[in-house]
């Protein structure tokens, strides 16, 4: 089971690579708004969901594809931690 730090690192790398090419890693902090900040749109969010499910072996429900759960790296880590518990 991955630690929170490992999860954040993996998700951050995925987002930087997939949606913010060329952006420095420090531009994406734990509280950077991803959905409400316009980094993730609906398709990008679905791609992120597919990544999370594949990488961490979790299953997300439709209502969890929401700013409440996926808006920041910290939110995502909290969700993943809860799923893996």
């Amino acid at each position, binding site marked *: 089971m991955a630690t929170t730090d490992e999860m954040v690192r993996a998700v951050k790398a995925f987002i930087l690579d997939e949606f913010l*090419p060329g*952006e420095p890693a420090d531009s994406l902090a734990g509280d950077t*708004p991803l959905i409400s*900040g*316009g980094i993730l749109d609906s398709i990008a969010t679905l791609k992120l969901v*597919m990544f999370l499910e594949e990488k961490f072996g979790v299953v997300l429900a439709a209502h969890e594809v929401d700013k409440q759960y996926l808006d920041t790296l910290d939110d995502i880590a909290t969700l993943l931690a809860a799923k893996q518990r």
Partner: protein
Amino acid sequence: MRPWWRIAFLTLQLVLALFVMYRFRLESRTFFHVMLLATGGFVVHSQLPLRFRQPFFVALSVASIIVALGWLDGIAVVALGLVLIGICHLRIALLWRVLLLAATGGLFALWRLELVPAPWSVAIWPILGAMFMFRLAVYLYALAHDEKKPAPAVTLAYFFMLPNACFPLFPVVDYSTFRRTYYDRDELAIYQTGLKWIVRGLVHLIAYRFVYAHLASDPADIRSLGDLVQFVLATFLLYLRVSGQFHLITGILHLFGYRLPETHHLYYLASSFNDFWRRINIYWKDFMMKLVYYPSFFALRRHGNTLALVVATIVVFAATWILHSYQWFWLRGGFPIEPQDGLFWGLLGVLVVVGSLRELRKSRSRVPARATGWSASLALRTVGTFTVICVLWSLWSAQSVMEWLVMWGAAGTVDAYGVALLAALLAVGLAVGGKPWPVGESQARAPARPSSMQTLLPGLTLIALIVVASTDWYSGVAPRAAEIVASLQHSTLNARDANLQHKGYYENLDNASRQSAQLWDVRSQKPADWIPLGSTAAYRSRTDFLGGELVPDAHIVFMSQSFSTNDFGMRDAPRQKAKPAGTIRIAVLGPSHVMGSGVGDDATFTRLLESRVNAAASPGVRFEVLNFGVAAYSLTKQLAQLDDRVVAFAPDVVVFTDSPRLREPVVQHVAQAVGAGVAIPYPELARTVADTGIAPLASRGIPVPFDSLRSVAHLLGIPTRMPWHEAERRLRYASPRLIRATLDEMKGIAKQHGAVPVFLALDIVEEPPDEPPAVLQSARDAGFVVFDLLDLWHGRDAQALRIAEWDNHPNAEGNRLIAERLAVLLRDHRAALGLASSFR
């Protein structure tokens, strides 16, 4: 600690915003009152401890409902709303709550349709509908999935939120966002954003006024490429009203701590159809994502992600189409299902599906935030997206698909204005669209304190708007600019809507779903029993060129007034056909304002005129002013009526009446006659109509626009006919010749029967046109005596002279003014009228 001076500074700017609303008369009077309440409420709210703020906001919101709707309707909205909220919280399974809400909604729908009597007025439904029609779904969704249970004050604030009482069209605020973003940042920064969005909303609304009044033309008047480009562009720009209202709404909510996201973001600069969908009405997109798209996608993903994405996107656009009609039902009544809507949402849906598939398959490299360079590729994509959306929007807004198709025929008439406009739009589009504009206003992590310029900008913008609104200051040096600004300082109908309203006096507008917001604001005040004459027992159809007439000896109530006809089907006193000795007969023909729509039998201007001219008559002379007016009688119908019955009364003077909008009734009458295969019994008029080439309107077959396409269909053996809109367009082009031919026929018949023809230019209570209508000169050239009363209403209190706020026909006082002026004109022109010895 909140520095008092910053709250005072914000309040001062809100007062300036109120002054701008007042100077430009933006939105409704109700909105202004609610804004006053919001401004005062903001000051009190900002000084309260945090725990009292939400309850205070609820109290303020309820007060705004009372202010907007009055006590009875306001209490009804709150009470019915509480019933719906109560059902959401019943301790039964979610499915049962949904079914119970649906049943309650069904009962409300019966009230909305006025099928069941209710102690409140129908005015509550647009507001109650706006508060609950979508928010209930969002709220139930949150109840089902959110772990945190809602506090009563949050729920009440969510449903009854302050500006809703005066905005039936309201963004679909997400409940979780509403709750989560409440004072989640520095409060002064939230207030500052609110003020910025209020000012942005005001700018959008003023820009909308300009587009509506000066750019949005009547599709009937599109004759060249330039007209077409301007029309298509303006149709899309009219959306500024919605984005303006939504900015105002969310701005006001910010003043009470609700840090909601932007509702629209630079939607004219979208670089793809997916980008457009994400920038325009963002709340709707989020609502669809949450309740339709993701649930559909997750339900289908076992069949593969691509299929799930395609089907989920299609479901979203189908739901959007249906839910627009559902929204329409609560806001305006009726459930419009129009082909234009299906085509618009269908085509946009296909474009978004294609874009989604591309995005899913490839890594979507967002433009880095710091990139500021102009990009040719981005510019071309932005211009292309804007162009396609403009075209789709014009289809969505069209009265019918055929009207839209026929409209494009004007593209073949290339004019200098069209080429220049296209070139200018392309240049501006490429220059602006090539810049990498951000996809959304960042809901920043911890917002930095706004810079001095950001803080001052809203106030400076408001001061600039107030200066611009003070036209007296610069009308001497820039009269044209002052005139344009003055035209933006009141809400009035543009040419297209004025024509539609005029048409609506005579017909039940069958396509209410296409009415502009401006026209709807006027027409929605009309009571249900305010029906056109053609729908009453006092009117009957005929199958000849006249088409219809008043029923003899009818006695009804029409527009709340007694309405009687005599033995001859005239709205007049009892008359004898044979002219008594010593009598001078003045026959007055014309449409509704001659017939006397909205005034009693004794208050028509013909009745009053008869008394006046008889008071001035020579000894032994008696005048009879015969009222042949019938609502919706065009000039061509007046010609037919002259022949059919007027000449039998041996009039000495025949007065034909029409307004500056005489073209449309003539076009409609002739098109109906030709379409029904009715012969036009006036050779000159019949020839002119034949020259327009509209004979294929009467053919049997499928409607196909343009001669060339009909020829192709004919070669393929497909029977075709000319579509109605093409016939209308051709007749409009030929209208000056049609009107002149009608006048010549009128004059010929009048002279043949020894009557002097008079053309009376008389409008309902509206400002005169800027230029004298061409028909006045045509009438003079044809040998008519011309009475021009188009300036009669100028400089007078129009409201005091109209029969109702929603109907501009002259009331009894207006009819008195008409009679007074006509009596003077008849005396002044007695020689030309052959009445020199008839007046004292």
